[in-house]
């Protein structure tokens, strides 16, 4: 498959150096993830063209920047929808005026009416920006970006500063919206949960460098990345609803070759969803646990053991005959059970979270 978004940029400013190379797929969300101060915003601004970095940026057939060939297309001809961390609406225009501003100048984006509907702001069109709440501003800026996004949509921390209900509502709307969008989406976030919920791809940035990039489930299943040292590290599996057991109130999910049961009803049989199994919720046993309250016990093979240089725990990557799982266990358990790569174990999964329908 070709890589429709192809980025290779370098920039030095003060003591900060950005050196980023990655590709992202033509459709769907690529989360640019990393700790605060990693240079995520600078990287995005450089891709959009608001920051002058050296290198090359190509989106599909369009080459936006290629310093080796002396080529640079100015921001206003790129057709990129950009929602900054603090969205800058044009304060002298109404919300509708903001959408029309983009529609008059960019051909090939979305119609203002449709964008307003998708972003859920049809009731705000006549308002002035300074009368909007934080969440409403975010949505207005999102609608405006949808009008402008002919080639790429870029969202910089779209949930920052929103209260929990506004955040949840926007997250749900975005999840539905990005699937239908025909252009690649770059989402900057430092919340892994947001990335898991929205993104199919992940680019992990730390100190100005892209440490890894690829399909999100692949990256999260790796034990060697800094990602795995996070408290909320864990595998993300693409699953399909196999059955709904009405009597017991359990949904059976098939993920690769393995079967998982989760409490409550999720989706309809055949529907695809994404589940997250945190490493701290997976424990290991050498013998099949005879009598246990844990629903999901899977036979697995230890693929990799990754030491954490600081903590008392280690990360164990498990092969479950399909997707990989991560388990976080103490160093003492590792020693006592004699866990080494190749060993057959039983993974006891204490919790499975369904993250995206």
């Amino acid at each position: 498959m070709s890589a429709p978004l192809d980025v290779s940029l370098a920039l030095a400013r003060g003591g900060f150096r950005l050196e980023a190379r990655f590709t992202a797929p033509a459709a769907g969300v690529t989360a640019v993830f990393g700790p605060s101060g990693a240079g995520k915003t600078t990287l995005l601004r450089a891709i959009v063209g608001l920051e002058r970095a050296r290198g090359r940026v190509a989106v599909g057939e369009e080459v936006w920047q290629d310093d080796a060939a002396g080529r640079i297309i100015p921001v206003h001809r790129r057709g990129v929808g950009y929602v900054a961390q603090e969205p800058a609406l044009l304060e002298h225009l109404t919300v509708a005026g903001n959408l029309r501003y983009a529609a008059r100048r960019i051909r090939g984006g979305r119609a203002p009416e449709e964008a307003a509907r998708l972003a859920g702001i049809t009731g705000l069109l006549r308002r002035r920006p300074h009368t909007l709440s934080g969440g409403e501003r975010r949505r207005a800026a999102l609608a405006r970006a949808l009008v402008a996004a002919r080639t790429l949509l870029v969202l910089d921390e779209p949930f920052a500063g929103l209260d929990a209900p506004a955040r949840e509502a926007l997250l749900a709307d975005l999840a539905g919206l990005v699937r239908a969008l025909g252009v690649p989406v770059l989402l900057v976030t430092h919340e892994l949960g947001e990335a898991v919920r929205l993104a199919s791809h992940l680019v992990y940035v730390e100190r100005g460098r892209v440490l890894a990039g690829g399909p999100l489930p692949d990256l999260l299943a790796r034990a060697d990345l800094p990602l795995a040292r996070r408290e909320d590290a864990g595998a993300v599996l693409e699953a399909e609803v196999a059955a709904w057991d009405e009597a017991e109130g359990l949904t059976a999910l098939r993920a690769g070759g393995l079967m998982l049961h989760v409490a409550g009803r999720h989706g309809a049989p055949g529907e695809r969803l994404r589940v997250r199994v945190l490493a701290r919720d997976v424990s290991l046993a050498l013998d099949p646990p005879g009598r246990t309250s844990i629903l999901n016990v899977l036979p697995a093979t230890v693929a990799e053991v990754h030491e954490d240089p600081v903590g008392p725990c280690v990360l164990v990557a498990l092969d479950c005959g399909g997707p990989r799982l991560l388990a976080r266990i103490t160093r003492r358990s590792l020693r006592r059970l004699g866990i080494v790569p190749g060993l057959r174990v039983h993974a006891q999964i204490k919790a499975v979270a369904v993250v995206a329908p």
Partner: protein
Amino acid sequence: MSPDDLQALGTTLRLALASTLVLLVLGTPLAWWLARTRSRLRPAVEALVALPLVLPPTVLGFYLLLLLGEGGPLGPFWARLGGGLAFTFEGLVVASVLYSLPFVAQPLQGAFEAIGERPLEAAATLGAGPVDRFFTVALPLARRGLLTAATLGFAHTVGEFGVVLLVGGSIPGETRVLSIAIYEHVEALDYASAHRVAALLLAFSFAVLAVVYGLRRRR
């Protein structure tokens, strides 16, 4: 007011209007440049623009008289054009523009700086080129600064005296403005006429400043 004073009022208004228009046309791009440039020339240009604030008007008037007159260093140039600008209405406009420039450029520069980069960057991502951004984002967002600048430029031109006296003299219908009229009435000990004109200028200046400060309060 006497017919002479009414004529002076007309000249004053014409001068102020012409100067304000020229000031806005020249001062707006200058202020835009000052607000956004990273050039090392910026402090020098800012100092030049601000000079009329601290110089005695007679200093500016004296040099302008030399530069605009046929006897000065540009004499041959003016001779070829058919006469210098000293003691003409046009010469007064040139002098007023220089003299009132800080009153127009500074509020405009402040207004442009207050906009910040973000709305302009947003407009760029929405497909607006640099010139488009200036007219559809920068100017509308700086509109109150623009209004303040125009009002101050106009009022300050109405109130000038020293520069006008040196560059324009007092030619009725051409360069005799209200401030000169007051001066002449006082010289002639005609305090009643001086009062009428002076009170008019006082009331006008107060009204202008009240409007400017009123605008500043509103959102």
